[in-house]
């Protein structure tokens, strides 16, 4: 009974995701497409929940639903003028037929591959669980992220910082190093400012909580950092504070600190444990906590500034 219900539910979520995904691509109006895309991200969260990837569900809820949504929606607003011109040059019918054929072929091949997946599926779960004791961390996903595959996580944090450098370097010459994003003007006594005063304290508590439980339960630094970044952006949106000019020293120090601490600990592993990113026996848990603690502010800052975009205004001296 439960299984059948579950199956129906999964099917329903699958259909919902498909419809929203198609909508995000074919909708005539870009705003509608962006809204559909956000709903798409939020329904993916449900799918992750059903696939028992609660950590992934948290990440998707935070990044897919919130930050990517805000990013695209602001871009749509700023590019509104170009929409008419772009929709005027719709691809010709033969082009579209070819595109449909190509996409159909890719889909068909993928379905064949999916049906050909080995059964029972290969799994590293038991290998992870066998060694989790030595990391001192209770959440297997945190263990994988920061112990077994720490190199990936380090590279990821570095990629984020480089993406931010890339975004910043797109600033025009005259506003180099200025404030990113558009200056928001809102009524300081308005309802949005009110919400921006109520929500962030709760949000920061929730973000820290999600970060803290990450050691033993689903959660972790990415999710917590995203929540905090969103809260900061909310305050910026309400016009209560402005984004900092990117040439400020503290911005740059915070943006670089997390990966640097990570690399330093990794290098320290060479003499003490015999390999880059290896943890000496018995010190794994404190070191992992230090890395997470160092990465957290970096991630929050970088994620928020990635949404804010390239500098657009001159820094006030």
């Amino acid at each position, binding site marked *: 009974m439960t299984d059948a219900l579950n199956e129906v539910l999964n099917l*329903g979520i699958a259909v919902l995701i498909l419809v929203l995904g198609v909508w995000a691509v074919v909708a005539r109006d870009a705003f509608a497409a962006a*809204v559909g895309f956000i709903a798409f991200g*939020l329904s993916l969260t449900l799918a992750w929940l059903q696939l028992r990837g609660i950590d992934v*569900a948290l990440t998707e809820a935070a990044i897919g639903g919130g930050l990517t949504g805000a990013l695209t929606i602001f871009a749509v607003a700023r590019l509104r003028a170009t929409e008419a011109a772009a929709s005027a040059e719709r691809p010709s019918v033969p082009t579209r037929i070819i595109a449909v054929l190509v996409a159909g072929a890719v889909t068909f091949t993928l379905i064949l591959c999916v049906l050909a997946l080995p059964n029972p599926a290969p799994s590293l779960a038991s290998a992870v669980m066998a060694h989790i004791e030595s990391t001192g961390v209770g959440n297997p996903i945190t263990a994988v992220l920061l112990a077994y595959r720490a190199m990936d996580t380090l590279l990821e944090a570095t990629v984020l910082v480089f993406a931010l450098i890339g975004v910043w370097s797109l600033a025009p010459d005259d506003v180099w190093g200025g404030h990113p994003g558009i200056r928001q003007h809102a009524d300081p006594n308005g309802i949005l400012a009110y919400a921006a005063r109520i929500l962030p304290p709760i949000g920061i508590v929730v973000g820290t909580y999600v970060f803290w439980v990450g050691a033993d339960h*689903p959660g972790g630094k990415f999710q917590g950092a995203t929540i905090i970044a969103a809260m900061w952006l909310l305050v910026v949106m309400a016009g209560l504070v402005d984004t900092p000019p990117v040439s400020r020293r503290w911005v740059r120090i915070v943006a670089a600190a997390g990966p640097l601490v990570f690399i330093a600990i990794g290098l320290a592993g060479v003499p003490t444990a015999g390999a880059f990113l290896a943890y000496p026996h018995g010190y794994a848990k404190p070191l992992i906590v230090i890395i997470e603690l160092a990465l957290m502010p970096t991630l929050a800052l970088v994620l928020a500034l990635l949404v804010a975009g390239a500098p657009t205004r001159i820094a006030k001296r």
Partner: protein
Amino acid sequence: MSEFLLAAAGFVLLTVAVGLVRILRGPANVDRMMAAQLFGTGGVAAVLLLGAATGAAAAIDVALTLALLAAFASFAFVKAAPGGDGAPATDRDR
């Protein structure tokens, strides 16, 4: 009990899906802005019910995140949408 909760989750999800179709078709952007609202309530309820049905306690954290970020998304809509607090022009003017 878990069957009941699962069925309830499915039902809520169904109403969310129906509402979403209505909202996305909506004639004006104002209608579309409600999408995040809808997920803020319906989606959170579905997540809570699913979590309770499958016994995943951490689903509440997901619901918490979803609630915060859905609020963030709807504020972003309002700021960015034509006719919202951000730009005064509406779609039809262009």
